[in-house]
């Protein structure tokens, strides 16, 4: 019965089978070809390096995650506030939106050294760098969500002479919530990428080393399995972060009865 249940969900089977097959093929190829581990380690060697390296890698991950979360908070606050300001005033839109878009199109690797130049505390600079990339999806999501209120709903508010502020708080902001949360989810994963890129640009993470620094360090030492181990850790935290934000998103939408109806 159980097997039939699993087979009925080919998606789940594939989700497990594809990584297993890839990993198995990789391990097999490494073993059969005899490539030395300092050129390409197999998954088992990477796993070993991960376990052995945890005392170094976990604190580094904590540093990187702290930058990521700090950046996400800054990006969320900045993105939402800017979107509200733009929604309330067409003048602010003309003044600020082009600036935000410009900031978005410059690659972070190019901006990070400049920010690091002026911001004394490296941790603060890293958070700013990562927030810079995480902020745009939040802004864009919130802005497009704020425009989603229907004409009939707006007529209803006009009928009762609702002020701009009332319309924003009671209609446009709740309508924007699903789009805001989707922006936050995208921004969250970008914040992690941003944190790592910024650490690379800094070369270190101030007093404490982040995951990017550990990858660089392992590279200098030709400790290739550890480089891979750090990458695995990074990917895993990215997935967990994404799942976490997705979970929060779903819970909030259910709470506000904004979740798409089941089956649709």
């Amino acid at each position, binding site marked *: 019965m159980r097997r039939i249940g699993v087979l009925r969900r080919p998606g789940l089977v594939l989700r497990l089978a594809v990584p297993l097959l890839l990993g198995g093929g990789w391990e097999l190829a490494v073993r059969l070809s005899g490539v030395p581990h300092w050129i390409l380690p197999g998954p088992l060697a990477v796993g070993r390096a991960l376990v052995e390296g945890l005392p170094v890698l976990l604190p580094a991950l904590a540093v990187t995650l702290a930058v990521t979360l700090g950046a996400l908070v800054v990006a969320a606050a900045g993105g939402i506030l800017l979107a509200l300001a733009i929604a309330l005033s067409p003048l602010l839109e003309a003044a600020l939106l082009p600036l935000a878009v410009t900031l978005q199109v410059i690659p972070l690797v190019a901006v990070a050294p400049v920010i690091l130049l002026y911001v004394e505390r490296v941790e603060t600079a890293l958070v700013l760098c990562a927030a810079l990339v995480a902020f745009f999806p939040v802004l864009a999501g919130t802005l497009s969500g704020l425009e989603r209120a*229907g004409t*009939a709903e707006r007529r209803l508010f006009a*009928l*009762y*002479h*609702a002020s701009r502020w009332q319309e924003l708080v*009671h209609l446009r902001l709740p309508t924007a919530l699903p789009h805001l949360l989707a922006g936050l989810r995208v921004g969250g994963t970008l914040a992690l990428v941003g944190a790592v890129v910024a650490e690379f640009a800094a070369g270190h993470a101030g007093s404490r080393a982040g995951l990017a620094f550990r990858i660089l360090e392992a590279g200098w030492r030709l400790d290739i399995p550890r480089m891979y181990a750090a990458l695995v850790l990074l990917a895993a935290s990215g997935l967990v972060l994404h799942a976490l934000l997705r979970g929060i998103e779903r819970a909030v939408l259910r709470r*506000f*009865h904004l979740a798409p109806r089941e089956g649709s």
Partner: protein
Amino acid sequence: MNTVLALEGVRHVYPNGLHALDGLDLALAEGSFTALLGPSGCGKTTTLHIAAGLLAPTAGRVRRREDPPPPGSVGFVFQEPVLLPWLDVWHNVALPLRLLRRPRAEIDGRVAALLRTVGLAALPRLHPDELSGGMRMRVAVARALVTDPRLVLMDEPFAALDELARFRLDDELQRLWLARRFTVLFVTHSVYESVYLAQRVLVMGPRPGRIVAEIPVHEPHPRDAAFRTSARFAELCRTVLAALARSGATEAAA
């Protein structure tokens, strides 16, 4: 006649060039129930928006007791319920009063009383996604009435419901109107619904819309299922249908 609202020679052309209304005259006596009937796209909804003060006509006069109408003096029921999905029944009904910044005690009292009247008192905490279509429309009607408006404008409010639910809501509306005596302008494209509910059926011609016929329905209220199957009802429906056909509305809906 104690007139609540009068439209005189109203003409409306939308910015995109659509000529919606021309030479529309309409007067609503206080406490009256008027049905507005016409083919699709003849400007019925435009008429309601002008009556609500949501739209200024291109030309013509709109006369009311107070101009602009004080907020809350006009209730509007849209084609769709237009409920806010994140608010429960109670808060959806309370929304107009909250937008008008009425005191908390007044809001509590009015919402509670109205929910009792429309039979929603048992489920104030349910959200729109947990209600049937008929229930949602009931909430929309309650919301339109919560400010105790003098004028209630309804834009084919029950058109999307199945026939039984529509009959039930027609009867509810009739009961509420008899109890509170607000003035109703009820847009519909159902000949039967207009004859069943209204004291007077106004027939609009095709776009640009204006009133082309007026059929009084002198039958006393409350009307019930017996009226719906009476010979008098059938005769009135025939009269209205004939007026619709004469108006040039070839695809007059029944």
